[in-house]
């Protein structure tokens, strides 16, 4: 960075803001339309605390601690406690925090839409995702096609469905098993597979290896696969959904495994989410999903970076 560039960034603020303004207006319309969509479908909008005592232990997600609490990395655990308490259909627009995540598609502080519904599985949830995107596109007067990153993406159902196994077979230079053995799943996903996803229609990448799902149910009769999917649009990962694991014993084992993995990597260890595990015993079958709202605005606004769709980037605060 050249000397004085910080000052010039301040001077450029009105110009930067002029470029962001249409994206901020779009953002507001998307948030309103989301509320409209879920309310009309009988979902209850809820809020759960941002300051929590025990985030879901995950190897590669860093929570930020404030005094004796953690800023939520996702509202997932609290929302599932509400399912267990008898709320069958809930959604939330939540501010979430993850340490060390900063790039063209990442912010350490971002907005997630999460929704959960009892009595359905991840396939039903995929259909609801298709309906949501079409509804939003309609509300934004963008028809059924999305123009994003030079691509022309058809939002009409059904979207492309590609299992993780098939994606490796089709696009990767090594097999899925090989990638898992060599601990190269993530780099191959980013470099060789993701650029092909969500090109003609959005893509559901589904059925993840069981080892890659901390909170998802395993496929009945197929314990090597977790009922988890991700949505990709224009090569960008937008959402992560699954059939929810509601076996408290199995969930504890998974958390223990994640915590052990974190300890091995020398990462911070947070307490076991005991209240959640207790509630899980009463949680009915359900499916739920987390969708990155900043990225959703990016794809509907054809923004190049996530900074373009927020009021102020972390470096501008």
């Amino acid at each position, binding site marked *: 960075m050249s000397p004085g560039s910080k000052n010039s960034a301040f001077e450029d603020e009105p110009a930067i803001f002029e470029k962001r303004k249409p994206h901020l207006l779009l953002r507001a319309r998307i948030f309103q339309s989301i509320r409209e969509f879920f309310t009309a479908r009988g979902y209850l909008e809820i809020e759960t605390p941002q300051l929590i005592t025990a985030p879901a232990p995950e190897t*590669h997600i860093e929570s930020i601690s404030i005094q004796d609490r953690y800023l939520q990395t996702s509202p997932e655990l609290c929302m599932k406690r509400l399912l267990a308490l008898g709320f069958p259909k809930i959604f939330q627009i939540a501010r979430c925090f993850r340490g060390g995540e900063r790039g063209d598609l990442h912010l350490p502080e971002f907005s997630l839409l999460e929704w959960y519904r009892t009595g359905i599985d991840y396939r039903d949830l995929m259909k609801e995702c298709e309906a949501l995107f079409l509804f939003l596109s309609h509300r934004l007067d963008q028809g059924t096609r999305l123009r994003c990153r030079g691509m022309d993406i058809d939002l009409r159902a059904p979207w492309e469905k590609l299992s993780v196994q098939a994606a490796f077979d089709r696009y990767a230079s090594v097999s899925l098993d090989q990638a898992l053995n060599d601990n190269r*799943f*993530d780099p191959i*996903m980013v470099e060789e597979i993701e650029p092909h996803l969500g090109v003609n229609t959005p893509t559901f990448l589904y059925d993840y290896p069981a080892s890659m799902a901390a909170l998802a149910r395993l496929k009945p009769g197929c314990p090597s696969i977790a009922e988890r999917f991700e949505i990709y649009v224009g090569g960008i990962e937008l959402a992560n959904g699954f059939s929810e694991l509601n076996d408290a014993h199995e969930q504890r084992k998974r958390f223990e495994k994640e915590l052990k993995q974190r300890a091995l990597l020398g990462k911070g260890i947070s307490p076991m989410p005991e209240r959640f595990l207790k509630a899980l015993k009463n949680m009915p079958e359900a499916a739920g999903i987390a969708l990155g709202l900043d990225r959703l605005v990016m794809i509907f606004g054809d923004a190049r970076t996530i900074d373009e769709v927020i009021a102020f980037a972390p470096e501008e605060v």
Partner: protein
Amino acid sequence: MYNASDLRKGLKIEIDGEPYVVTVFEFSKPGKGQSLYRCKLKNMITGVIIDPTYRSGDTFKPADLSERKMQYLYNQDDEFWFMDVENYEQIVLKEDQVGDAINYLMDNLEVEILFFEDRPIGITLPNFVDLTVTKADPWAKGDSVTGDTKPITLETGYELRVPPFIEEGGKITVDTRTGEYVTRVKE
């Protein structure tokens, strides 16, 4: 030591005993997977570009780089000699390390020499240098209109285009970053 999360454009690190500068940097993180730091790195000695992907936990040694003020002495074949003005130590750079700077090197020019550890690897010129015109066609008043240019040759052998009023034997200032004429030097 740097961590993968310290990586950013312009950072200079050492890999396998050679200095590299980060020219492109991209953070990515698939699903609930690992943080990945995708880079393009340029070898500061050979210019070779590599594109590794690093993960959190990877660490790097900062490249031990320093700059010293030196004076250009002379060249012999493809060797260019410079001298530290304080301790009279002399070092040599090869022609390919000097690069485009060759167009501006005249005796006693003060430059910054970049060292990797004790090894000289590159040169930084002053932004502006004054050089004598050794060859230029005469300018006949009235022949040209403003905005025209003509080719000339400088004392270093560098050829460039300048306004028509520049004459042989005169001095001009050249911007070493663009290689372009800036102004006539008044004697």
